């Protein structure tokens, strides 16, 4: 019931690998780690969600604020390897329309 966040930088890409659950308890930690990365102009932030097996609206909120930040600072946000269950929440809330989510969703729910 925790979340680990691993960040590695390679040229203009920041790879963020998440593992665990994103809820009201862990979301603030994610926000603190993610937002500064979206403020370095020209950078792409790629978030790997393969090992995120639970997320709720608090997680969606973090990605919405990260997306807003990318628009302000001319950076990019990309979500990759999202699990089917998590993808479903992005779909229900309509966020798949505005987020850059890798189309190879696990479980093939596309």
């Amino acid at each position: 019931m925790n979340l680990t966040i691993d960040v590695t930088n390679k040229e203009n890409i920041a790879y963020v690998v998440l593992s665990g659950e994103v809820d009201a308890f862990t979301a603030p930690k994610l926000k603190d780690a993610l937002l500064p990365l979206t403020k370095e102009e020209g950078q792409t932030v790629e978030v790997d969600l393969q090992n995120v097996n639970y997320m709720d609206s608090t997680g969606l909120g973090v990605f919405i604020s990260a997306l807003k930040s990318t628009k302000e600072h001319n950076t990019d946000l990309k979500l990759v390897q999202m699990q089917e269950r998590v993808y479903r929440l992005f779909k229900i809330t309509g966020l798949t329309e505005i987020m850059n989510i890798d189309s190879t969703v696990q479980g093939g729910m596309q």
Partner: protein
Amino acid sequence: MEPFDFVEIKVPAKAEYIGVVRLSISGIANRMGFTYEDIEDLKVAISEAITNAVKHGYNETGEGEITIGFGVYDDRLEVMVADHGGSFNLGDIKQDIGPYKQDDNIEELREGGFGLFLIDALMDKVEINSKYGVIVLMTKYLHEAEVGQNGDQISTSQ
């Protein structure tokens, strides 16, 4: 009176206990025979309700308790989340919720506005009573389609 089992849990109104309640509902729903997908829906719905109670009921100070009640019926699970003490304006919360639409301005997207919307989308029935604090009562039916096709399976009162 329709027979049912009742399980009650009280947790401190702190975000770190949301995961604990998620495990509880997962166990109860699994015992009742809910599908994997339905259990995941229940986990999100109850987490949203508790997050609301933690955030709005107690202004994130972590004081007070949240009471969670599970009504276990033959054909459904009723979940009650009560943030005794605090209260939040439901009208405010209900306003501006709902899925993103293509013509919405991204700047206007509310970062915390999806909670109640998700509860509504994932559960079969949602009722809210805000007379004494805020109580969210949500219901999810077992094998919804099957019940609809075969009325004999529904156990009614008597």
